[in-house]
């Protein structure tokens, strides 16, 4: 996993709430046995019409948001199915940071495992970022170490993150490798609970 310390990128708004993982990556794309290549299917039925043409009214398709790496959205993002294909698709499409009013628990966990930072912000903060992002080329910088998001027009948002996911993201650790350092503790537990 690639470490994430400071990230600067173009912001793409997705002004909806309760976006479920069935929308993020529809089920017909869950049949692959690889971890890669899901980006092309991200928000498939929102990005493409039934004939496979790009829907011109969907934010992610607008020219000004091409190459965006920070997604800004509403409440309860990533609800529903536990499919990790959702963060795989988000990451493969090019997003590294999500800013939302709130997240579903499983989705949020899955993001950390894939080096995606999920920032929680208030409704007002999300709305003001979305408004700013109307301007072409609007970028934000995220400093994970300092737990702050800022732009070059004076916006500054402090955010909370628990120490463990922060450390995982900053260092890009392989969590299984970390856990295997506790092998003796796991074995002791197993002996005691036979």
């Amino acid at each position, binding site marked *: 996993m690639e470490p994430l310390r400071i990230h600067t990128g173009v912001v793409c708004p997705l002004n909806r709430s309760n976006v479920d993982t*069935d*929308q993020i990556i529809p089920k017909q794309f869950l049949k692959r046995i690889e971890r890669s290549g899901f980006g092309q299917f991200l928000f498939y039925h929102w990005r493409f019409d039934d004939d496979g043409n790009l829907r011109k009214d969907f934010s992610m398709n607008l020219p000004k948001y091409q190459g965006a790496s920070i997604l800004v959205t509403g409440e309860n993002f990533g609800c529903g199915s536990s499919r990790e294909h959702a963060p795989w698709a988000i990451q493969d499409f090019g997003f590294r940071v999500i800013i939302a009013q709130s997240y579903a628990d499983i989705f949020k966990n899955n993001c950390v495992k894939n080096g995606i930072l999920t920032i929680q912000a208030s409704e007002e903060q999300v709305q003001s970022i979305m408004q700013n992002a109307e301007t072409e080329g609007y970028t934000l910088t995220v400093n994970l170490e300092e737990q702050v998001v800022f732009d070059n027009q004076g916006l500054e948002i402090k955010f909370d993150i628990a120490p463990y996911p922060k450390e995982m993201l900053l260092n890009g650790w392989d969590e299984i490798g970390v856990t295997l350092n506790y092998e003796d503790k796991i074995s002791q537990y197993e002996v005691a609970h036979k």
Partner: protein
Amino acid sequence: MQKPKNIIQKVWEQHVVYQEAGKPDLLYIDLHLVHEVTSPQAFEGLRMNGRKVRRPDLTYATMDHNVSTRDRNEIKDPISKKQIDTLKENCQEFGVELSDRQHPDNGIVHVIGPELGLTQPGKTIVCGDSHTSTHGAFGALAFGIGTSEVEHVLATQTLWQAPPKTMNVKVNGKLGTGVTAKDLILAIIGKFGVQFGTGYVMEYTGEAIRSLSMEERMTVCNMSIEAGARAGLISPDDTTFEYLKGRRHVPKGEAFEEAVAKWRALATDEGAVYDAVVEIEASEVEPQVTWGTNPGMCIPITAAVPNPDHEEKANKKDEISRALQYMGLEAGQPISSVEIDHVFIGSCTNSRLSDLRKAADVVRGHKVNPNVKAIVVPGSFSVKMAAEKEGIDQIFKEAGFEWREAGCSMCLAMNDDIVPPGGRCASTSNRNFEGRQGNGSRTHLVSPEMAAAAAVAGRFVDVRQFTAQGVL
């Protein structure tokens, strides 16, 4: 005297392997259920790093999402077939027990776990599937995980988890006649929203919960995730022990009595506190139908579809308008006026023997409306066999339902059971998201009884007024 604890706290404490300030707890996992969709990348990760499955004896695999419900031996889609074959190869290579498509134990992962007695009170249970919350009905701490976590559990039999906040979802009084466990959980989500459980593990308590059968309790716990909670539990009691007695993986004889004593002690202590409490009156719950594109968008069968103009907040207005447009409904339209063309009775929410019995009771002596295609998909091979022994299949078939093989089927349409674009389905499953049952499909979540009545009437009807002669 020890401070009273709730069951969530007790089960958690019994599974902490390691604790350190600034870190989540390292939690031991007693049972890891595996299916074909969320596991291939996890096994591949083990292979790439030269790792083994730490406890194959605590790991159990089945295939359910991609399987055909028309013919157990055939899968037409080559990509689905590859995923199925990959699971089989992985289970062989890593020594994991698998009930494959032809195996008599095969079925939906959340149906067979309890059936085989793998699911037991006090266990920590995970699966790469959000409806793992189902197993909470037994007083197990059971939650869905992503594929990275699947790999982590395969390699270490543990997970790093921050202790959850706990919530008491208290259901007072008794459910009325014709009102089911499905209506109860839909009403709870309708009342408190699709994210009131986020960050919590919920315990369902109260008189109405106590009087539910195990299969009804599974229906309730199954949809905890639709309220945002990764897990939802019910303290075990005699109903639980009665269900478990004699099942294959449950201790026998004296060992069973010892297990029961241990399980009984897990139940929430008198006076235990929670981080949050919500309450609902069971007697006020009516049969529910969802009208929109998430499970919180539900109303009683006696009500009308909401009007976005009655909402003050712009984003709420937008959400309702968008849902109405997707669903092809008019604001203010009575839900009972909505005609359907598909009925699906099945899924890990409502495909157990008692679900099929109750739906069959409604259907008996009637015919499926000529405009409706209706299918019944039992949750497991064992449910199918038991239903056939009772003649339930005959009741459905005589009425014009298709009687299928077990699997996840039309709940998420990963196999060939698909609602066509614009099609409208009364479904006993758990999610009414856009496109869930097929691109452009429109899903209305209901109980098995309500689905059965809708199949006959060709529209939603109040099952409480549906008699042997039809709608009153």
